[in-house]
């Protein structure tokens, strides 16, 4: 038997495969396809203080080996989450992580305080990288001072595990990683979507109502992998890698490059069972390669070259 577990501080994950925020709903959407409790964790849809309707339709465009989305954090707000969603999803035997979002630092702080008191939520993912909202979101994740400020503020009120999710739309991702580590983040997840665009040449207009949107899927994998590699070298806290992971081999690339765990995003749209298949694949790989612990391969390429 191989050990697949990893930890963020004293928070244990039974395996390194989680699902990415905004691509797995709250979990029940996938109950028909897999046993959600088998996963290392699930990160639920981006949540805000107030309910949000998100952006206008069309919010999606397909691109070569990827997709653009401009959902814009549609969600029913923290009250609804607490009353209606939390009771049912806290039954899952896995780490449930809430992805939190705001327009102002105060929004993030309020949300973090609220979620701090939810017993079955052991961690939050601080989303400072949503490219699809007019205020907040990526603005925090593309400015070092803002990234520092919001991380610090949330850290001061949130006592459980704080994961900060970085934006890839920056010149130097390692700088952001170091800043949030300094301010007390327990882990870093990346990447969120790359800012992209698509034009409908028949209709001669942008494909998305918001013109630009977030690019995800295999197309972004090489960029995501490079950034995860850079960040893993820059910080000591565990790094959670994502961006275009569709197969076991993709997930392994991230682990070998230095990620302690991975999140599966867009892949779940194409194959709702992708996450568990990848989990099984990683275990098989370890056995075949003769490793007994997932830690043996994390950052492997950095050891040899």
């Amino acid at each position, binding site marked *: 038997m191989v050990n697949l577990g990893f930890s963020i501080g004293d928070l244990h994950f039974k395996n390194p495969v989680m699902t990415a925020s*905004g*691509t*797995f*709903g709250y979990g029940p*959407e*996938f109950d*028909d*396809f897999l046993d959600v409790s088998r996963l290392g964790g699930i990160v639920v*849809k981006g949540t805000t203080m107030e309910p949000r*309707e*998100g952006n206008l*339709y*069309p*919010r*999606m*465009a*397909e*691109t*070569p*080996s*990827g*997709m653009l*989305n401009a*959902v814009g954090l*549609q969600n029913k707000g923290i009250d609804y989450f607490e009353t209606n969603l939390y009771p049912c999803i806290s039954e899952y035997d896995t780490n449930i992580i809430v992805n939190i979002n705001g327009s102002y630092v105060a929004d993030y702080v309020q949300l973090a305080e609220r979620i701090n008191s939810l017993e079955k939520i052991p961690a939050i993912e601080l989303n400072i990288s949503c490219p699809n909202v007019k205020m907040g979101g990526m603005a925090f994740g593309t400015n070092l001072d803002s990234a520092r400020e919001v991380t610090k503020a949330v850290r001061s009120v949130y006592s459980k595990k704080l994961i900060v999710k970085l934006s890839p739309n920056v010149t130097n991702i390692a700088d952001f990683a170091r800043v949030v580590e300094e301010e007390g983040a327990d882990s870093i997840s990346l990447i969120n979507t790359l800012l992209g665009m698509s034009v409908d040449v028949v209709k001669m207009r942008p494909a998305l109502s918001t013109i630009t949107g977030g690019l995800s*899927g*295999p197309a972004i994998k090489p960029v995501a992998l490079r950034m995860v590699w850079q960040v893993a070298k820059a910080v000591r806290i565990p790094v959670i890698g994502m961006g275009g992971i569709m197969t076991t081999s993709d997930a392994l690339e991230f682990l070998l490059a230095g990620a302690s765990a991975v999140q599966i995003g*867009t892949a*779940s*749209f*194409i*194959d*709702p*069972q992708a996450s568990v298949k990848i989990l099984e694949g990683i275990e098989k790989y370890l056995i075949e390669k003769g490793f007994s612990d997932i830690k043996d391969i994390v950052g492997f390429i950095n050891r040899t070259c």
Partner: protein
Amino acid sequence: MAKRIEDFEVIDNKRINNDFFILDLFSVNKLPDIKPGQFLQVKVDGSPETFLRRPISMHDVDYDNNAIKLLIQIAGKGTETLSKLQNGDILNIIYPLGNSFSIPGVKEKVLLVGGGCGIAPLLYLGKWLKSIGIAPDILLGFRNSERIIEYDEYLKIGKVFLTTEDGSRGEKGFVTAHSILSTLKYDRIYCCGPDSMMKAVAMYSRKNNIVCEVSLENLMACGIGACLCCIVETVKGNLCTCIDGPVFNINDLKW
């Protein structure tokens, strides 16, 4: 009713004209209960341009033979690839997805209105209505007589009325111009077709106080309520076409 992910085998691929073809798919498993108006998400292999699954309606369901029929219009790369499938090819499918058309009262006079690939869900709906003792009228709109498809199939369900835009067969004009709408009084209309057609039918229904349900074809990524890409503005806020729809009562839509 649980959603499934399953491989189907192509047992027939019939081209019906330049734009349309019908796929017959067979599963080794017993089909689950599939409701009229539901759809499936099919994985199209063979190109980076068909990264996402494609949503297609249930055109017909044959429980005895574990087979389903899809009526598909070639709209782009994905549907083109599907049009070239050969018997024995395997398709990976997630189904059944979405809500369904509502059940009409026993005495109701029902009209099905369809155009383009929007006629797809109406065949299974019609058969199902017939099975519960309702013989709907069917009003189909096409661009011209050459584009008329599946006419004989719909004839088996009820009376079929036609419009063509150029008047080459049936009445001339759009479906909403058909005389039947001014001569007969329906209690309920089910409609699927281009947006403009559905909106016109919705307006007509509203004006005449007819219960009307439309089946939307919004762009979808996941098809299972996870991505929130397929939304439609409703009086209850943004709802997902893939789980709250694709069938909506027009009173809920902000049309």
